[in-house]
């Protein structure tokens, strides 16, 4: 039960957090200039976005949940967690961010999930 909650927090909170950061950046709009000044301005703009802070908060929750999980479970526990994150990310991107996740992209995500699991397990 304890592990289930933590795995849920790591994967779902982590993915929602990254999606919030993505949403904040989409609201700012495409970055077209890459001078240090322009990038600094983008960082400042992002900090004025509530979605950015929500994202950072959720990512922090996920990070500390993972630390907690790995403090009493074997590192191999990170395998299903990482793999699951990619699947949740693709589902979330499709339904919450309304991205077009094509068959090819799903296939790619599937290969990445298998690959990451094997690298972790190996």
């Amino acid at each position: 039960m304890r592990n289930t909650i933590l795995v849920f927090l790591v994967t779902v909170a982590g993915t929602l957090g990254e999606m919030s950061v993505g949403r904040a950046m989409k609201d700012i709009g495409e970055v077209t200039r890459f001078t240090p000044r322009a990038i600094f301005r983008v960082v400042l703009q992002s900090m004025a976005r509530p979605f950015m802070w929500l994202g950072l908060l959720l990512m922090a929750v996920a990070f500390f949940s993972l630390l907690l999980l790995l403090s009493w479970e074997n590192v191999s526990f990170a395998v299903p967690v990482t793999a699951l994150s990619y699947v949740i990310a693709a589902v979330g991107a499709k339904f919450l961010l309304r991205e077009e996740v094509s068959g090819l992209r799903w296939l790619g995500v599937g290969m990445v999930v298998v690959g990451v699991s094997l690298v972790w397990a190996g």
Partner: protein
Amino acid sequence: MPAVHTLRTKTFVLIALMVLFGSSGDVLLGKGMKEVGKLTAWTLPALFHFLLPALLNPTVWLGISCLLLFFLAYMIVLSWADFSYVLPASAAGYAVVPLLGHLFLGEAVSPLRWTGVAFICVGVVLVGNTPPSTTTLAPAPAPARSASHAPAATGS
């Protein structure tokens, strides 16, 4: 289609930066934390004796700097590219780390790991072949964009 071409190019460059800074950050942080040692117990004194040397360790700071640069590249690429494009594509890092470990540190990589590296490479190439951005018609950007760009244009 020059617009799509440059979009793809800058997406590739930023994901490459993410992979570079993300993997070196992970490796440096891992190396630094191994020098520091293990957290012995979840008590305040133990936490203090663990965190203090960690925060004084230059390798740890180098790792943290790399991870901050990773996050900056991540933020920038997400300003235009799909989340479902960037995330699986940046998994290339999981393939790069064993590869670099094998080439430069002479680390042994098990056949299972090599299989995983191969799967990741194929997956990244497949995702990379889809259009990086599919949400140009999303409701959010249009009004927010003109509002946030107007002061920036006059300010520069």
